[in-house]
């Protein structure tokens, strides 16, 4: 199958030869780019290109997500009055039950307050938050669990900031452009979070397994090998200096099971995260106090 141009002299290569040449050149280009990016690490020559592409495609992603939102919200709009009434009565019942619990279990509340006081220092109370929406999720084919937020440096969001939602810790910001930020989820296999067990305050490191589905789990390695984590114990962030990249006291998950591996002579606790990573929508980025930006900064606790 040779095209008519294939019978020209050596000066005029055939289509097949040209394709082969182009293929060779492009593979070489790819290998060069991979080498440059993999070797250089943080100071990669690709990072300016990355931020330019992010600056251009980020807003496109945000706009597409906004344009697509009416379709995903359609489920809510189609609910009947009857259904809403049912929801209200269900919520009222639940509210009453929770109220009762809160009233009858002051002991637990006291313990919780104590624990809170232990795990958080005074300076840590009252985080400032910037709310953002998840507009894009990296495909699993890329084997890294990252999402794009619609808030960037113009809202005060910068690299190495903690991202959480109402359930618990989501991840940390690994790069930010003017209007978007990329977040590494804690279930990613590259993510390591310092964690603390809620009951005995033992510290350890949580590593993601790379899967974000309903079976997404974290592995907890305790620093002290003699400690046995108990099932259903809550793990919170341990926090690092100046809250970079994780602030202290954010709930991460619950101990699901404890496996002892004979090879490492240590116990591995499997943590089920509180956050449902398949249904991420509204999240908050922890920003330093007094951050100024183009969107409102929420401060934890009631304004006084």
């Amino acid at each position, binding site marked *: *199958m040779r095209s008519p141009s294939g019978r020209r002299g050596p000066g005029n290569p055939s*289509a097949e030869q*040209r*394709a082969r040449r*182009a*293929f060779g050149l*492009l*593979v070489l*280009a*790819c*290998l*060069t*780019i*991979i080498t440059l*990016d*993999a070797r250089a690490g943080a100071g*990669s020559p*690709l990072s300016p*290109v*990355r931020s330019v*592409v*992010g600056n251009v*495609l*980020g807003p*496109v*992603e945000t706009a*597409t*997500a906004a344009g*697509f939102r009416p379709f*995903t919200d359609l489920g809510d709009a189609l609910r009947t009055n009857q259904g809403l009434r049912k929801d209200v009565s269900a919520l009222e019942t639940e509210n009453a039950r929770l109220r009762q619990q809160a009233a009858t279990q002051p002991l637990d509340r006291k313990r919780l307050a104590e624990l809170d006081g232990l795990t958080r220092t005074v300076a840590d109370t009252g985080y400032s938050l910037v709310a953002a929406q998840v*507009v*894009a*999720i*990296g*495909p*699993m*084919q*890329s*084997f*890294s*669990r*990252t*999402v*794009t937020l619609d808030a960037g440096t113009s809202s005060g969001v910068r690299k190495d900031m903690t991202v959480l939602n109402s359930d618990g810790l989501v991840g940390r910001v*690994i*790069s930010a*452009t003017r209007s*978007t930020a*990329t*977040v*590494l989820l804690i279930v*990613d*296999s*590259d993510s390591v979070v310092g964690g603390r067990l809620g009951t005995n305050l033992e510290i350890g490191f949580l590593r993601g*397994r*790379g*899967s*974000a*589905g309903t079976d997404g789990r974290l592995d907890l390695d305790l620093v002290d090998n003699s400690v046995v984590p108990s099932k259903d114990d809550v793990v919170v962030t341990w926090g690092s200096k100046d809250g970079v990249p994780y602030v202290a006291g954010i709930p991460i998950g619950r101990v699901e099971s404890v496996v002892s591996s004979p090879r490492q002579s240590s116990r591995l606790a499997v943590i089920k995260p509180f956050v449902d990573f*398949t249904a991420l929508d509204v999240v908050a980025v922890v920003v330093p106090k007094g951050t100024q930006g183009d969107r409102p900064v929420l401060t934890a606790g009631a304004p006084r």
Partner: protein
Amino acid sequence: MTALRGSAVGALVCLAVVAQVVVFRYVAIDGVVPDLALVLVVVAAIDRGPQFAAVLGFAAGMLLDLAPPADHVAGRWALALVVVGYLSGRVRQDARSSAFTAVLVVGAGSFVGTSLFAFSGVLLGDGAVPVDEMLRVIVTSVLWDLLLAPLLVPVLLWLLGSLRPARERALHESARVLG
């Protein structure tokens, strides 16, 4: 005029990449979405041949590597898609004969592309996941692409066909009549 056609193809690539991370996340199976960019490259190979597809694969792959929220080493998707574009361009004569073979080529391309990407990750130690998880992701994405190929291939063939320069289109038509 060619610049206009080029930018139209570029817009198509951008659309595929953005739709992959924004729109298709709502239907993702355990985080695996259809590889729209890969399907586009395979269809371009069937329609235009290996050289065009390899260049398009490079462009689409770089965009996948650099657009947020990508975090892996840049160039990995580009390498995978260049190979996919070139290989499917080599079998284009068979793939053009029937829609069924075109769908099969998409499936094979999807397998080669995701496997190459996974393999380069293992080599570089970039985003390592257990092998069983890797295989599950590859199989799921091949099934996704096979599922969507019967819908996407005719649409993309028509789109790329209408973006073809007039002179080449005439050649193409005559080749189809002759061949």
